[in-house]
């Protein structure tokens, strides 16, 4: 019953999506109103039907309906309810089902939010989203059907992949990732629609797109940070990023989307970079699909699965369509996408944005190259190679440093033109601070050149971005006599997009500091302790108190309880564990992390004697790791602030007579050209 409801909802949803795309061709002739109504109707119906299918699957999982193939694959009577529900996205078929649902949710939101807007842009956007949904629905109805029939009905299933039922972040990371990843379909759909409808010649479509991109980008950022956190808390190696293809797959579109969020400002302000921006949007989407293909079709390493089936070929066909359609459309219309403005002076904010885009794109290509190289090498030379962390680290660290530097310079320079003297005046203070930080950290902390550079550039960027807040708030205090806190709040409220951006910069600096410090100063201590024995770690003593085991319905747990002592007093108790799931030989480590603002103490149970007499413990100290999570939160907060602001109308800065309004040393919001709608 549940099976039929779910499957039929998907089949009808596919019919609706295809009908919407095909019927649009006829409705277009009967005028915009008919077209709009048709697309809205199709999109809302699609959303309703995919919601039914998702609810049917959740119900099947919760009711342990093992006659449904997906439940038989990931369900188990002994798995706790919470993990049973979220195993909706724990394997291939379910995650595609969830993907389609998120996609139809985005489509419904786009169509509903823009229902008042006339013209063909929005209906065409809806049609592109319906077309994309149709592809994923074909997968669900055919090769990746989650509602397959299993006979005879098994009495129990293996449960979800142990790694996926070991931590609550599993409930957070995938939905965020899907919201971000799938959300990039929206700007893509807008871009394709704008190219087809001819809207691409104006900038209106871009203003409509920007906030959707920002929203999806915010989700993607949160997802990447949550994924790092999850791997840190679950995988037991004390790291959070390994340049694994799956990680790179989420990071690649993030880089191009970040580049777009910056270069879009140049187009809005100056009418430049039109073609470039369309390219960034299209690449971002192509990279999300490429990433999904690479990690879910068994081309690069993926979770061990015997049944990858034929889904790879469907994805390949879809990538081919996406690439061909977007390349042909963008190149074919490239003449009408020519910009109208041009750079006035080398020292201006535009230049910084151009460099930022250059570096972010280079970053993307570096990561893409590293990810695809094993494939290229095997295709060309027939050898199996792997590209490891050293390549990525060596290639990307200079880019990171350059981006941190630009993140400071950008806010300090005005639009259009500046001169050397002015730039020097603006950059003197942050440059000085950076120099002091570099010298101090080289003398006191480390000889690692990368770490010193990271601290110096981070200091530079933080001074520049915080100063923008400081100067703005100070100006308000003087002009309006506001209290410091009020001035700060009003400053942000008056120009949320700009100060949201600066807030995101501050978050990125925090992440950079966390990454630099935790990699440069990471220390590992291994020791095999008998009960009562101690090891000393970073000024503390760790004493093995007991080694214990316990049976849980879905797993067996072995844990070690350790006392953390300081000056002979117990300050904390930590219990690193190993979880043994019945369907997997390898235990799943569950490290114990004592997190403080200045760093983490990370304990992992490496081995133990069966009789409980001794345990091998790895203790890792990693400074500033929490700053990565906090920084991620700040970036997302920045995105929220920027999103809450009203959309900006393009204010072309005309060739004025007389001196261009010189950027005041006090960036008074009131002095900026009106930027509210």
């Amino acid at each position, binding site marked *: 019953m549940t099976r039929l409801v779910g499957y039929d909802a998907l089949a009808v949803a596919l019919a609706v999506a295809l009908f919407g795309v095909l019927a649009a061709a006829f409705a277009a002739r009967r005028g915009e109103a008919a077209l709009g109504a048709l697309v809205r109707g199709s999109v809302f119906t699609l959303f309703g039907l995919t919601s039914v299918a998702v609810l049917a699957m959740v119900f099947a999982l919760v009711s342990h309906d093992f006659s449904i193939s997906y439940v038989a*694959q990931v369900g*188990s009577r002994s798995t706790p309810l919470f993990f049973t529900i979220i195993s909706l996205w724990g394997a291939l078929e379910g995650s595609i089902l969830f993907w389609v649902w998120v996609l139809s949710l985005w489509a419904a939101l786009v169509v509903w939010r823009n229902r008042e807007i006339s013209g063909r842009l929005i209906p065409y956007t809806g049609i592109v989203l319906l077309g994309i949904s149709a592809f994923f629905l074909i997968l669900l109805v055919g090769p990746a059907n989650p509602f397959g029939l299993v006979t005879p009905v*098994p009495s129990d299933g293996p449960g979800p992949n142990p790694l996926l039922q070991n931590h609550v972040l599993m409930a957070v990371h995938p939905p965020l990732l899907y919201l971000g990843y799938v959300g990039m379909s929206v700007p893509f759909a807008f871009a394709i629609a704008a190219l087809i409808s001819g809207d691409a010649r104006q900038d209106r479509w871009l203003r409509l797109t920007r906030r959707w991109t920002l929203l999806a980008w915010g989700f993607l950022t949160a997802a990447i940070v949550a994924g790092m956190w999850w791997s840190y808390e679950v995988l037991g190696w004390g790291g959070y990023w390994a340049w694994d293809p799956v990680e790179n797959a989420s990071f690649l579109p993030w880089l191009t989307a970040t580049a777009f969020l910056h270069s879009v400002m140049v187009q809005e302000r100056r009418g430049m970079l039109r073609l470039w921006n369309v390219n960034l949007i299209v690449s971002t989407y192509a990279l999300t699909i490429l990433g999904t293909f690479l990690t879910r079709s*068994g*081309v690069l390493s993926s979770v061990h699965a015997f*049944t990858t089936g034929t889904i790879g070929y469907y994805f390949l066909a879809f990538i081919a369509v996406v*690439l061909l359609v977007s390349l042909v459309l963008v190149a074919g219309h490239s003449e009408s996408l020519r910009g109208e403005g041009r750079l006035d002076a080398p020292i201006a904010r535009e230049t910084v944005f151009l460099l930022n885009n250059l570096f972010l794109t280079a970053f993307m290509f570096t990561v893409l190259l590293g990810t695809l190289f094993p494939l290229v090498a095997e295709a060309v030379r027939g050898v199996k190679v792997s590209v490891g962390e050293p390549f990525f680290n060596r290639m990307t660290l200079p880019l990171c440093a350059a981006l941190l530097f630009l993140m400071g310079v950008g806010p300090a320079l005005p639009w259009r033109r500046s001169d050397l003297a002015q730039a020097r005046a603006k950059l003197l203070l942050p440059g000085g601070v950076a120099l002091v930080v570099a010298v101090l950290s080289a003398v006191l902390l480390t000889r690692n050149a990368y770490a010193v550079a990271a601290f110096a550039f981070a200091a530079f960027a933080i001074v520049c971005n915080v100063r923008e807040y400081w100067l703005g708030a100070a100006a308000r205090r003087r002009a309006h006599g506001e209290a410091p806190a009020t001035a700060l709040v009003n400053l942000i409220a008056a120009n949320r997009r700009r100060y949201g951006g600066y807030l995101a910069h501050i978050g990125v600096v925090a992440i950079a500091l966390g990454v630099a410090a935790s990699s440069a100063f990471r220390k590992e201590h291994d020791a095999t302790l008998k009960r009562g024995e101690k090891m000393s770690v970073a000024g503390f003593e760790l004493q093995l108190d007991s080694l214990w085991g316990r049976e849980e319905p879905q797993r067996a747990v072995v844990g070690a309880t350790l006392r953390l002592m300081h000056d002979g007093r117990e300050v904390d108790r930590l219990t690193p564990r190993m979880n043994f799931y019945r369907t997997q030989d390898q235990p799943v480590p569950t490290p114990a992390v004592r997190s403080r603002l200045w760093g983490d103490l990370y304990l992992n149970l490496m081995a133990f004697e069966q009789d409980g007499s001794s345990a091998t413990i790895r203790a890792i100290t990693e400074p500033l790791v929490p700053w990565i999570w906090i920084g991620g939160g700040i970036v997302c907060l920045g995105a929220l602030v920027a999103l809450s602001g009203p959309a900006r109308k393009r204010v072309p800065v005309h060739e004025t007579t007389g001196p261009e309004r010189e950027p005041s040393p006090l960036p008074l919001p009131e002095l900026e050209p009106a930027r509210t709608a």
Partner: protein
Amino acid sequence: MNWRRALIAGAVAIPIIGLLRFGLTRDPRAIASPLPGRTAPAFDLAVFASGNGTFAPTRGERVRLNDLRGNVVVVNFWASWCLPCRDEHAQLSEMSTRYANRGVRFVGVVYNDVTANALRWIDEMGGQTYPALLDPGTRTAIDFGVYGVPETFFIGSDGTVASKFVGPIPASVLQQRIDSLLVAPVP
């Protein structure tokens, strides 16, 4: 619309798609098992389901790989919670019957499972024609380097592992691999 530019740009997509197409033809996880060519790890496991074939040791009896020396042995690792195992069960049962009189012995080793579930599974699948063995602590699975279920190992009459197959095994592969072992000259 400038079609010349469009065509040139479209041509850019072709090598990318070609590369990805190539990627689909290879398996990044295909790591050669060190086992083929070596003597199979000896096992000594208790029977928990005799099966209804000609080689049907009684329940509780022990099956030792060394005692089967001289026969071609097919060792299949499976579990009741494993979906692909359902797909290969009929082939295994059928081939076990077909090759029984030619000295080929099939054994199923159950992997990380509850005996009651495994017994019910065999019942539900309509019985099987070869014995099923218990592997406490998955010792034997570890010895054989089993990564997941199902995996099937082919052991020649001299006791060396000839090959292994990962995933549900098709009847044609079963037949071909057994045949190649039967004609192999005994060294």
